[in-house]
């Protein structure tokens, strides 16, 4: 890790824990953001952890930029020394792969794509060395994912798959971003999956769609009545492939207020995970199946 500090204008401190993605870097970001929050530094207005970086917004009329940076640097070693453990939850997210809505959208923006003659999934399967779309989809949902950042727009999660680096699914973003993406599209860019929380512009490849809303400003969705945003960093996600019949059923259940996402409380321990990824993931998924 080569931690780098920078000002972002006169109101932000940006800390890049590492320039490449790893769960070690993520955990340091998360610890650092918790420590800064706990330190209750007057003048701090936003604390944003990201995948491998972290940002604080502050009011320079209350605390001078150099003093703010010094405060964060004081906490860096403590953050690095913290145990990389988390009390969290694993959530099953149903995904309708190769759905008609993302398919219509990807056809509409084909000229902005690396491979104008195929679908996003066909392209992703090919460049990741899978001989079929089905095999790629299997790799996508067979192992769980870790929410390493929430942001871009309202409550959108970025997810990192809990597998060795050489098994990570990697795809480039569209050559030019689309101006439209269906709400709740399951996308992929770099090594990250995402769920588009709202309809709008986007550059990630599109693999499918979930019927489960993850952002509801009106808080009418039963499981979003306490807060409008579903995800938080550290959540673990297991995709569950569903077909059109399941999709339609869940949409109706969400509307009726009877849909309850399948969730289990779990502990995530990075050292234990690194020591035996397959075994650790199996336990996570077992907890989910028992829920």
């Amino acid at each position, binding site marked *: 890790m080569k931690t780098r500090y920078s000002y*972002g204008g006169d109101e932000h401190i940006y800390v890049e824990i590492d320039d490449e993605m790893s769960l070690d870097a993520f955990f340091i970001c998360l610890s650092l953001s918790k420590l800064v929050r706990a330190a209750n530094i007057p003048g701090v207005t936003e604390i944003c952890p990201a995948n491998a970086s972290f940002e604080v917004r502050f009011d320079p009329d209350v605390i001078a930029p150099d003093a703010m940076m010094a405060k964060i640097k004081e906490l860096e070693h403590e953050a690095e020394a913290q145990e990389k453990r988390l009390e969290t939850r694993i959530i099953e997210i149903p995904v309708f792969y190769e759905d008609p809505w993302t398919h219509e959208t990807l056809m509409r923006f084909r000229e902005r794509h690396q491979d104008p003659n195929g679908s996003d999934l066909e392209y992703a399967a090919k460049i990741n060395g899978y001989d079929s779309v089905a095999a790629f989809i299997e790799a996508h949902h067979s192992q769980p994912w870790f929410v390493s950042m929430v942001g*871009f727009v309202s409550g959108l999660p970025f997810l990192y798959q809990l597998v060795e680096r050489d098994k990570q699914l990697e795809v480039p973003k569209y050559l030019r*971003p689309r101006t439209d993406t269906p709400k709740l599209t399951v996308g992929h860019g*770099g090594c990250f999956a995402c769920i588009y929380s709202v309809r709008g512009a986007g550059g990630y490849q599109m693999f499918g769609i979930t019927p489960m809303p993850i952002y509801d400003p009106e808080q009418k969705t039963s499981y979003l009545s306490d807060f409008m945003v579903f995800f938080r960093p550290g959540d673990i996600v297991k995709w569950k492939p569903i077909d059109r019949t399941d999709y339609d059923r869940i949409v109706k259940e969400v509307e009726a207020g009877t849909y309850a996402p399948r969730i289990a409380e779990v502990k995530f321990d990075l050292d234990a995970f690194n020591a035996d990824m397959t075994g650790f993931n199996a336990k996570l998924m077992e907890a989910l199946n028992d829920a």
Partner: protein
Amino acid sequence: MTLEIIKPGLATSVQDLGRPGYFHLGIPEGGAMDRLALRAANLLVGNDEGAAGLEAVFMGPEIKFGPEIGAGMSVAVTGADIPMMLDGDPRETWTAFTVKPGQVLSFGFLKAGARMYIAVSGGIATEPALGSRSTYPIGALGGFEGRAVAAGDVIPVGTGAVVAEGRSVPLALRRRPGTPAVLRVLTGLYWHRLTEKSQKAFFDDAWVVAPEADRMGYRFRGGTPMEFVDRPQPFGAGSDPSNIVDGCYSYGSIQVPGGLEPIVLHRDAVSGGGYFTLGAVISADMDLIGQLQPNTPVTFKRVEMDEALAARAARKAMLADIRQALA
């Protein structure tokens, strides 16, 4: 008390000073793009500076004041320079005037600047969301039904006292961008990704505001395509040299996707993403961006932190002067 939207303008929305505290969830601060102009409009009509008003862009709306406003309501419009009529009679911007039930406020063609701030005594009284009335249309949050106003909308207004007509912000205290507009920048973030030649060109080049200029961000074109320092791309970043592992973005930060067109993120900023940023426009100049029309010539000027803080103090002093002038 209410006001009715007869014609909505282009993207007129309810805005106050925003909702800090949710950027870590991708919900931006939002609020008036030209905060000083909104504060001034509120002070003119006797409101708290942070009361909600209407932000109109490029084109004014047409507004009818509700039948129940009784003795009337004070109104002030600040920000851009635009002709304005009350029932067809001219009214001055940056000056308080009284409206009576059923009167209609309309606008002519924009002369200078980009955004108008319409304050009414009592303030716009839509239901706050996450502590603010600001409209965040992407997230369908706040404002009037989470969207820009539309013809036929009847917008609730709070109760306020009518103030003396003719209260005005002195000319010297109406802040406007020059020509070219100069935006001061603190370099940093991923500045090191650019070659020295491109670092120099960014500040030497003449840019113009591109048509893609909205509350999320302002795009600029006309400068030299940027070159990047060679490196193997870090794991997870993506293959383009302008890609980084998706990180946090800051308000005012300048990203340059593909090294082509700089985008300065503004009040409705996306909170993160995978493009490198070369630094950020200083906080004192963010309001000015809100007053830039497409095709406006712009240059970026490199400053250091002490100059950024001095500019911030100068802007604060200007607000103090406005407060004093209207006390």
